C-alpha cells in the first residue's frame, strides 16, 4: 500500500555533531480510536496507529508498538546517535493497513 502523508510535528536539533546523542520528539495527529463499548455510545471500530518504525539513512533505529492505551495524538521521545546527515523516515501503520509516512532531515556537522 502506498504511504500516505500525515500531520506530524517532528522536532530535531537544527544540527548535531557526529557521535552526539540527539533527542527526537514526535507528535502525530491521530484520534487513536479504541472501540469503547458502553451503553449510550455508538460503537466505533478500533482504529489506532499500532506500529511506528523509524529508519535513519535506511537503517532501522527505533520501533514502537502502540496499544489503545496510548493517548490520542501520540507523543513520543527517543534518542539516536548522529552518524551522517540523512533522513529519519517515520512510518506508522494503522489498523486496516494504511501506512503513513513522514521524513525529517538530521544535519550532522
Amino acid at each position, binding site marked *: 500500500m502506498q504511504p500516505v502523508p500525515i500531520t506530524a510535528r517532528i522536532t530535531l536539533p537544527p544540527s548535531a555533531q557526529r557521535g552526539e546523542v540527539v533527542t527526537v520528539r514526535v507528535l502525530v495527529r491521530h484520534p487513536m480510536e479504541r472501540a469503547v463499548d*458502553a451503553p449510550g455510545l455508538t460503537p466505533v471500530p478500533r482504529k489506532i496507529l499500532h506500529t511506528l518504525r523509524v529508519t535513519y539513512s535506511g537503517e532501522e533505529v527505533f520501533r514502537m508498538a502502540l496499544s*489503545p*492505551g*496510548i493517548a490520542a495524538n501520540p507523543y*513520543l*521521545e*527517543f534518542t*539516536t*546517535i548522529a552518524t551522517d546527515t540523512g533522513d529519519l523516515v517515520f512510518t506508522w501503520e494503522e489498523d486496516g493497513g494504511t501506512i503513513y509516512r513522514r521524513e525529517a532531515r538530521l544535519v550532522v556537522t
Partner: protein
Amino acid sequence: MTTLSRRAVLAVPLAAAAVPGSAAEDFAAATSAILAGRIPAEEGITLEIPPLSENGNSVDLSVRVNSPMTAENHITAIHILAEKNPIPLVATFSLTPRAGRAEVATRIRLATSQTIVAIAETSQGAVHRAAREVIVVLGACVETG
C-alpha cells in the same frame, strides 16, 4: 421501593473480580510473557510519572534505563504495563545500540488509579523492573456499566 440487602451489595465487587480474562489476569499474563521465567532486578531503571493525574486521558510518562548501549550490552526493549487498564500492555519500545541512551517518553491513557510497571530487557538476557503507584481522578474509560 426496593432495598438491596447488605449481602447483595457486598457481593458486587466480588462478582466483578471473578470475571475470567479480567484486567488483573491479563496483567499477570502479559508480565509473565515478557519475563519468561526471569527474575527482574528492581534497579537500574527509572520510571517517571506524576503520582496524581487529574485526567487519565493523557498522562506523561518517561523511562530511563542505565545501560552502556554498546553492541554487546544494550537495552533491546522497554515495556510499559498498566495493571488495571483493559489492555495492560500499553506500549513496547524496541531499541538498538544506535539509540545512544535508553531513554523514552510518551503519553498514555489510564483507566483508574493503579500501578504502572516498566520492564526493560537487555541484550544479555537480564530484565529490570520499576513500578510506580498513580492516582487518577478522572479515568480514561467510560464507566457506565
